[in-house]
């Protein structure tokens, strides 16, 4: 039993890497545009479908499909900014939230119309590694490493480039950044595109792990919320750490109980954190 729990914890850490990547995008968008992207998980769902179609039906190589999906999700991010978020920037909070929630309805049912309710996946068999008494799925390890590399690249992008600097500055003071000669509207577009591209990358790493269906996204949106809030909204480092906490907690409690109870536990943690320490473990701050 103990070994089983430890094994679940290891898998939780591996999953945490990808969750960290997912939460990073949500956090970035919240930090810069100050908007909670309700339909973020649905982007991942669409990315998974796109990779599926390009690989299984258009017969492109998997890597090329994944690259196209990343690009397509970035475009979808731009469109979201252009058509939904942009027109609502000055609107009441509730209207922003509900409009983005409207996107959930659109995306999920679009998937339903095009692909139906069946579960779809690309049959990929990565080996299961046996280390000592532990079993580690190759696909999870691959996703974990890929997510860490992506996060490293993102860190460099934010800290070493002028655009990254503009993004961080916008997150800290939306008005003053204009006085620096930054076109904040372009920064919003870049942020949404980056956030979109991230969902494409997450989808690529999810492809060997999960099968996709129209309602695939919602649980990941909620998971990403939980992580972002636990780490402190807008706090990228906090999000990174709490992704691993949530990854381990859900995967261990799923082994001990059922997946639903694991989700309930994650939600309870979320609610408790909100009530007791709404600024999150490491506090809210600019990026």
């Amino acid at each position, binding site marked *: 039993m103990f070994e089983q729990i430890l094994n679940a914890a290891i898998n939780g850490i591996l999953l945490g890497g990808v969750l960290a990547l997912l939460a990073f995008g949500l956090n970035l968008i919240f930090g810069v545009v100050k908007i909670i992207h309700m339909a973020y998980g649905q982007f991942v769902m669409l990315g998974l479908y796109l990779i599926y179609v390009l690989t299984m039906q258009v017969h492109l190589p998997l890597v090329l499909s994944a690259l196209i999906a990343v690009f397509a999700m970035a475009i979808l991010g731009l469109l979201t900014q252009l058509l939904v978020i942009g027109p609502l920037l000055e609107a009441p909070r509730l209207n922003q939230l509900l409009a983005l929630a409207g996107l959930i309805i659109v995306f999920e049912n679009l998937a339903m119309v095009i692909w139906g309710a069946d579960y779809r996946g690309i049959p990929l068999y990565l080996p299961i590694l046996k280390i000592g008494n532990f079993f580690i799925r190759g696909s999870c390890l691959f996703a974990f490493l890929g997510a860490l590399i992506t996060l490293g690249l993102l860190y460099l992008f934010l800290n070493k480039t*002028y655009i990254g*600097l*503009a993004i*961080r*500055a916008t997150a*800290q*003071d939306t*008005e*003053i*950044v*204009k*006085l*620096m*000669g*930054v*076109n*904040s509207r372009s920064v919003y577009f870049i942020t949404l595109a980056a956030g979109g591209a991230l969902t494409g990358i997450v989808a690529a790493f999810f492809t060997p792990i999960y099968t996709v269906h129209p309602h695939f996204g919602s649980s990941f949106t909620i998971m990403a919320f939980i992580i972002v809030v636990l780490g402190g909204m807008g706090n990228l480092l906090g999000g990174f750490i709490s992704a691993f906490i949530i990854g381990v907690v859900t995967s261990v409690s799923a082994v001990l109980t059922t997946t639903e109870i694991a989700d309930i536990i994650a939600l309870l943690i979320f609610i408790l954190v909100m009530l007791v320490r709404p600024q999150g473990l490491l506090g809210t*701050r*600019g*990026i």
Partner: protein
Amino acid sequence: MLEIEGISAAYGEFRVLHEISLGVRSGETAIAVGPNGAGKTTLLKVISGLLRPSLGKIYFDGQRIDDQETHEIVKLGISLVPEGGRLFPYLTVLDNLKIGAFSKKAREEFRKALDEIFGLFPILKDRKKQLAGSLSGGERQMLAIARSLMSRPKLVMLDEPSSGLAPKIMARVFEFVRRIKSQGYSILMVEQNARKALELADHAYLLESGRLQFHGGAEDFVKNPYIKKAYLGI
């Protein structure tokens, strides 16, 4: 260099500026004084494009700018040091200076501008790697001024640079302003502390409840009995 013709502005239905006209000549330091709520900050916001005027025109170097966006206006050579500095607290001192030089032209001259700034304000060089949020009040104001110079402006606008600072530090801030004035920048400064500000001024304007009440050279200003009584306390 900067000409403002009959500007009015409002927040929603609340009018803050009533047909203000003023100008800043090249190389000159102009000061706008007046009590709290006179519309001084609003005036600077309108010039920098953060707030659209409801009436009137603004020209900079002969070019109309009142319909331009803030980031375009910055590129033309107007920079604003906002009240309280408004630094990016989680960026280092160096990154704050870097973002100040965001526009393409300024970016090309970044190295040169940075050397000049470090010459003018040597402390910033020592504090380069520190987060801006950890600086002291005076240092923050210094960095805010330095940051605005990084965009290679022709006109530097300062919004209440001395507000909220202890008298000793206040004196240092005016000293910074004197330093940049001696570098040949044109300056438009808005200040509640009229006496100190007038020491630096070539030309001064008095704003009261959104209207321009008086303007003239610094000496005419000091001689005016009303201003003497109400703002200089003599």
